[in-house]
């Protein structure tokens, strides 16, 4: 079974994203930072499941979102990774794209915006 992985150090943002993506129908897992997320990815895959999409914040303690994407891409070239962040500068967006992100949403977001992007990227 495929899981959605929501990675953000803010509990309220993780809850907002989980609430928005419920209608997609995949189980949703949460992680508080990039390092925690890599462990969740390994745990999900070692149980015979897979990741449908990662929704990732940029500024997080321990391992930030851009570093997470670089690490994640070492083992997974194709699963969509959507950055969801307050960062909107072109340079930061380019860093995300170069790291291997699939999309970039700037907070505040409307639930429908996030659902549309996820549906577009998850086939």
């Amino acid at each position: 079974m495929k899981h959605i992985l929501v990675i953000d150090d803010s509990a309220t943002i993780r809850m907002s994203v989980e609430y928005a993506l419920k209608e997609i129908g995949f189980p949703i897992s949460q992680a508080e930072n990039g390092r925690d997320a890599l462990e969740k990815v390994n745990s999900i895959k070692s149980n015979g499941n897979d990741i449908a999409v990662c929704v990732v914040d940029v500024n997080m303690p321990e391992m930030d979102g851009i570093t997470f994407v670089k690490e994640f891409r070492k083992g997974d070239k194709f699963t969509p990774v959507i950055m969801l962040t307050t960062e909107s500068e072109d340079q930061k967006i380019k860093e995300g794209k170069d790291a291997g992100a699939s999309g970039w949403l700037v907070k505040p977001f409307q639930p429908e915006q996030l659902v549309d992007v996820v549906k577009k990227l998850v086939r």
Partner: protein
Amino acid sequence: MIKSKNNEFGKDLYILYPGDHYATQEDCVIGTISASCMVICLYDPIRHIGGMGHFVIPGAMGTEGIYRDEIGSHGITSMEYLMGEIVKLGGDRKKLRAKIFGVANVSGVNSWTDGIKNSIFTFIDEYFRVEHIPIEKEDIGGDRRRKLYFFPRTGKVLRKLLENNQDSSEFIKMEQEYINRVFKEKNTYGKVIVFE
């Protein structure tokens, strides 16, 4: 925000206007005058990093929880801007403590309806409870403006209650402009980019 060197503290003073946020690990002072808006002071007492945000949520919320509410999501995003700066400086979200001021109903100027005022109180209660950030000081409501000085490395706050227009006429005008802008833009969301 403006920076001033000539002040009673002998440190750099960063004065925030409504809508501003600033975080730092410098030995400085962050000041503002709160009226209708909320002023959130956050600090990490271990790493000596702190920041202040001066903002408002743009309307009355429903009752389903701030993370399900479009008005609430704007407040969460305002907190994220401040929190993001603290995290970038190395602050630990799990160590943060909060001091909260403002949300006054100052007669004749920028007064809130009960619905909006109660929504701001609900936002504060719910946000800090869900994020597990202890509130050390909550000095909100009433009918007086507050002049605030926050020392981000220690979390100390000096607060003085102001008379109606004492010392703050510029802030009253700026706050009204900020509130008008935020309420007008409450249906505006961030950009979406899908990389090819």
